[in-house]
């Protein structure tokens, strides 16, 4: 990080003398640094939240594989017919990828938590269970129930597994909320740097007038301001990002894989986003100040 910073600073620091003509703008400077700092800090958190929410949504989505169960408690003898009928219906239902009758062993495994392992399953009038794999969008449960009532009246659709669906949705929503915050934060910091740069330029009207009077070109004047604001924003954002990362690391993570958002850490490609925060902040400041400086200068003779 610090290496990155120094390289960028060097790139922008090619004319120290020109910098001196702009007075150290005190509070405006601190304001810029602080805004960039706060915004970068918030951005790191929003980013971590988005990434974590994204991870959760993905993992749970995979785990669930969008499954539900159909149970056929048919009178003895009709079991096989109704099972086949139900399978036919299911396979032609939009939103269902696959439907498969469970074997005896699979049914036993399901019941084990309730009865222990030595359940005499062959002796019981057990219903046949059918495992349904859905698409991402899922199927129309009400419509399916109607069709099943006609074709396999003994079938009972149990989409109990769906309870997790709203959770996945919530995670996705949280992810969107996170990205929206990031966008908002980026806009807000751009606006704030622009306003700060404008305030600095307005406060330095005399400096600009003096420079024009002694024959300074617009680019010379603009450069001094632009460089300074870009560097400030870069510095502030770099610190904000750093502090944000440290804060994230310090938040105790349970490492609990079942945990929802208990793990707000940044992983893998997420780091790319994080490392982009300071240079993007600097770039925004660069463009904003350049724009502001141009506007102010054009008003001047």
């Amino acid at each position, binding site marked *: 990080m610090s290496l990155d910073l120094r390289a960028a600073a060097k790139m922008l620091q090619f004319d120290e003398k020109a910098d001196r*003509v702009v007075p150290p703008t005190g509070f405006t400077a601190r304001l810029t640094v602080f805004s960039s700092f706060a915004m970068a800090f918030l951005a790191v958190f929003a980013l971590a939240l988005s990434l974590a929410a994204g991870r959760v949504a993905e993992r749970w989505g995979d785990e669930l594989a969008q499954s539900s169960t159909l149970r056929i408690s048919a009178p003895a003898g009709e079991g096989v017919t109704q099972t086949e009928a139900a399978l036919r219906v299911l396979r032609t239902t939009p939103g269902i990828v696959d439907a498969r009758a469970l074997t005896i062993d699979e049914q036993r495994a399901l019941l084990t938590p309730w009865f222990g392992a030595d359940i005499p399953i062959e002796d019981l009038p057990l219903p046949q269970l059918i495992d349904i794999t859905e698409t991402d969008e899922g199927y129309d449960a009400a419509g399916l129930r109607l069709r099943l009532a006609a074709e396999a009246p003994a079938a009972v659709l149990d989409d109990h597994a769906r309870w997790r669906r709203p959770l996945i949705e919530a995670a996705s929503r949280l992810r969107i909320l996170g990205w929206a915050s990031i966008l908002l934060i980026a806009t807000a910091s751009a606006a704030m740097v622009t306003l700060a740069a404008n305030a600095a330029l307005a406060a330095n009207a005399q400096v600009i007038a003096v420079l024009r*009077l*002694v*024959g300074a070109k617009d680019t010379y004047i603009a450069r001094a301001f632009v460089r300074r604001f870009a560097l400030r924003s870069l510095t502030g954002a770099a610190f904000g990002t750093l502090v944000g990362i440290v804060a994230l690391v310090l938040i105790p993570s349970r490492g609990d894989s079942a945990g929802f958002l208990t793990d707000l850490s940044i992983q893998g490609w997420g780091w790319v986003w994080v490392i982009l925060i300071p240079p993007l902040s600097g770039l925004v400041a660069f463009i904003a100040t350049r724009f502001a400086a141009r506007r102010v200068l*054009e008003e001047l003779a």
Partner: protein
Amino acid sequence: MLRHNNAGNRGRDKTAVIELENVAYSYGGGELLTDMTLSVAPGSFHFLTGPSGSGKTTFLKLCYGALQATAGHVRLFERDVRGLGRDDVAILRRKIGVVHQDCQFLDHLPVTENIALPLSVSGQDTSGAGAEANLKELLAWVGLTARGDALPPELSGGERQRAALARAVIMSPDVILADEPTGNIDWEMSQRLLTLLVELNRMGKTILVATHDLGLIRAAKAQVPTRVLRISNRRLQMAGADL
């Protein structure tokens, strides 16, 4: 009226450095300056007088491209100001040293750096031995040797005006425009400034000084051929020989 005259008081056959042709100016209300025609020959020494509020400062601003004439043509070094781009104006100003009436500086830089500012902004070296010696000599000339490290807000009124004059001449410009340069200076000091201006004029610089100090004009006339312009009734007049 000064139409079609050659203001070069040494009668040299050179083209004018500042040329006004039927120039008028208005800040938005009525016309402040009307129908002004003037041609300032290189190496000439002009004074500009007129009552307070008559437009002396405005006139000077027209002469260095800070204002655009609302009518007529202003030509500086034979180029029409109206056609100049912003960077052209900047480069032009390096050939015109200006002493503003309200001398403004970069308040965060010491006096010496302020005086050397025209060099810095035009990309010239200010740290070389030659440049430093030159700067020192200039400081001594305007009597600011002891105040070189002070910041501009720490200067007295007269010190500011002298610093502004030093800044105006450091680039050794072809033209020097001074607006009321002795307003806050005592008689002795203003004589010294005049001597400085006369010296520069003898070196071939063109000088135009706006002032209400008739004593200064009289003193100048004793040393160098000058012409006195007067803004009266919105027009440019040649002042009588009574001065």
